[in-house]
């Protein structure tokens, strides 16, 4: 029997993870609902005034996106760790880092992409001007994959642990702060009608760095968790 190539195995894994995601829609929806609820809390906690909400809106969208992406990490490796799928992946002829990258991409498609789509809705509630909307969506589209990739390392490090929840947040959040800074600032700049290519380029650069190094670190971490 011939072993499937990198592309074939990637496609098969992507389809499998997306199918599994489709079967657990409820579980996947939780972080999205969380995103909306967190965003709702801020006007209640501060004030419904338009000026204030406009001022803090981009930051709130980004903080809520960051928290919800950390919350979604629980579903990334947990079930595959429990039923032994990850062990099979580690033993398969394909590089583990490659397979984990595909898993992370599938995870982003079901958890990060919906955030990018939902965000304009939330931004509307914070009176974000329409001109700033493309910049915000672009920053989220470039930033949330990095959040998933960094989160994948954190999830891999804690995959074998029983009490992983708060620990994952503690590991991942400090590492994610640059994304938060550049993402929120891009939206801020767009609201003032300024050039946003600077922060967007930086977000893209960090994303490529995370794409190249993140899966290697995650694979090493999964191997530790499997022992």
């Amino acid at each position, binding site marked *: 029997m011939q072993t499937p190539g990198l592309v074939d195995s990637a496609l098969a894994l992507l389809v499998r993870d997306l199918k599994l995601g489709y079967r657990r829609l409820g579980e996947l929806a939780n972080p999205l609902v969380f995103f909306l609820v967190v965003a709702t809390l801020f006007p209640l906690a501060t004030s419904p005034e338009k000026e204030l909400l406009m001022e803090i809106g981009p930051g709130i969208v980004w903080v809520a996106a960051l928290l919800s992406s950390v919350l979604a990490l629980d579903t990334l490796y947990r079930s595959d760790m429990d039923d032994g799928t990850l062990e099979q992946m580690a033993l398969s002829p394909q590089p583990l880092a490659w397979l984990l990258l595909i898993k992370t991409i599938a995870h982003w498609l079901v958890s990060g992409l919906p955030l990018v789509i939902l965000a304009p809705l939330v931004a509307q509630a914070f009176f974000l001007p329409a001109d700033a909307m493309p910049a915000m969506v672009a920053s989220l589209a470039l930033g949330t994959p990095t959040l998933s990739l960094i989160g994948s390392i954190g999830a891999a490090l804690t995959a074998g642990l029983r009490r992983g929840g708060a620990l994952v947040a503690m590991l991942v959040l*400090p590492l994610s702060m640059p994304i938060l800074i550049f993402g929120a600032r891009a939206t801020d700049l767009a609201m003032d009608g300024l050039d946003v290519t600077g922060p967007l380029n930086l977000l893209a650069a960090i994303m490529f760095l995370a794409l190249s190094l993140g899966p290697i*670190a995650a694979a090493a971490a999964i191997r530790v968790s499997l022992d």
Partner: protein
Amino acid sequence: MWTWFHKLSSPPHFYRLSASLIPWFGWLAAAFLIVSLYGGLVTAPADYQQGDGFRIIYVHVPAAMLSLFIYMFMATAAAIGVIWRMKLAHAVAVACAPIGASVTFLALATGSIWGKPMWGTWWAWDARLTSELILLFLYLGYMGLRSAIDDTNRADRASAILALVGVVNVPIVHYSVTWWNSLHQGSTLLKKGGPALPPDMALPLFGMIIGFMCFFGAVALTRVKREVLVREQNSKWVKDMVTSK
């Protein structure tokens, strides 16, 4: 070179070596710290802008430098541990974390004490202070991950990966925070290293830095001794050494 490396990596040899090095580091640290603190607090002239308040830098700057140095040192030890599967290197990395966290806390605390008379507030979202705070979070995450994993071998490797990921992140964090801050307020207040310090101000500062380094050496080696004892408790040499006393 390699025989030296192998000899160093043997736990009994390292244990004896550190036992003989600790007093040297310790007394050097004490001497440098006492003399330089005297130099910094007494003989150095007052700053023409900040008066005697500037003397806080004699404890703040060494702490801030050491906090970053220890993280780099810890990550290097972790990398050696992962690449050459050297258990002793992991023991060194573990020993660094609490010292690094406490020194980072010290840098934050003295920085904010300095900020009160100079800026008028205990805390400012200044780039240096903020990245120092994130560094503290990285240390706490490292220690949290270790304490969550029971098996020493697994904890070693998992925390090493985290330390290495953190090292890639440290320059990005620093750069992003600087950029973030420069948009909000000109960092005119905190332009360090502008005019070079005159020698009678600079010498005590160098002395303090050397003293802090020696202090780190002494405490880290002491902590490594403890780690080696725990890890080698089933070996003959530890048993012989403990029972023969």
